[in-house]
């Protein structure tokens, strides 16, 4: 299990793991619920979701392993919160590749239009 400290990720998460963790509707729903900012408990996160506490905990641990979510103890409960940097890192990665395609498409455009 990764560190339960919100401030120190166990290791820098790899985008590949991020994307795999995000590729699930329940986990995306959890991310959405967490995006409010403040730490939330499992029971709070599970409200209205048709699944057990156990199942929610399992999904949260996948998100934790990917570095997307951090947990800390608050009294008797664990509070879960979103980490921003890995999401931004993943987006930066895709933006970079997308920009490269922009360049290629621009060149294709120039090439074709020039010979029009």
């Amino acid at each position, binding site marked *: 299990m990764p560190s339960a400290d919100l401030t120190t990720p166990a290791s820098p998460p*790899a*985008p*590949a793991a991020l*994307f*795999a963790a*995000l*590729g699930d509707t329940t986990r995306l729903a959890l991310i959405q619920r967490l995006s409010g900012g403040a730490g939330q408990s499992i029971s709070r996160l599970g409200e209205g979701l048709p699944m057990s506490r156990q199942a929610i905990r399992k999904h949260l641990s996948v998100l934790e392993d990917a570095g997307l979510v951090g947990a800390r103890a608050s009294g008797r409960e664990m509070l879960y919160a979103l980490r921003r940097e890995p999401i931004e890192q*993943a987006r930066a*990665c*895709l933006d*970079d*590749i*997308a*920009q*490269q*395609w*922009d*360049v*290629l*498409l*621009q*060149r*294709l*455009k*120039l*090439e*074709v*239009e020039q*010979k*029009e």
Partner: protein
Amino acid sequence: MTDMIIRSIEIAAPVEKVWDALMDYKKFGEWFRVKLDQPFELGKPSTGHMTYPGYEDFAWTARIVAIDPMTRFAYEWPATGGDKALMKSSVPEWTLVEFILEPLPDGTKITVTESGFDKVPEPRRSNVLRSNSGGWTQQMENIRTYAER
């Protein structure tokens, strides 16, 4: 979809012309800066090497997965991330590149999607494509200079 890139551009030329720039392996090579060894053929591998100065020893490898005339051209290529040893031995993760053409009243809209990044481990993932073509910032400059001339 988080693991997919979608980009598009409008080109002031008919679909036939754009399709030709994709399908004619020599023309493809001009704008993609790659010297291909053979024409594209459905289900067949495509081989060659990059022609961008300084990157001539970078290999091009792809598998052609779709050729739907005037509509769609798709290939898969390995996510080698610029690792030459991997280029020789190949890698298990391939991403899918698709070009979709749509006719417009005064030209063609071309959309490229690349997907499958979720399965590619770092650090290769960040280097995918960039390493295939190299020097992107420089290339941006080249295009700007060329376009403004």
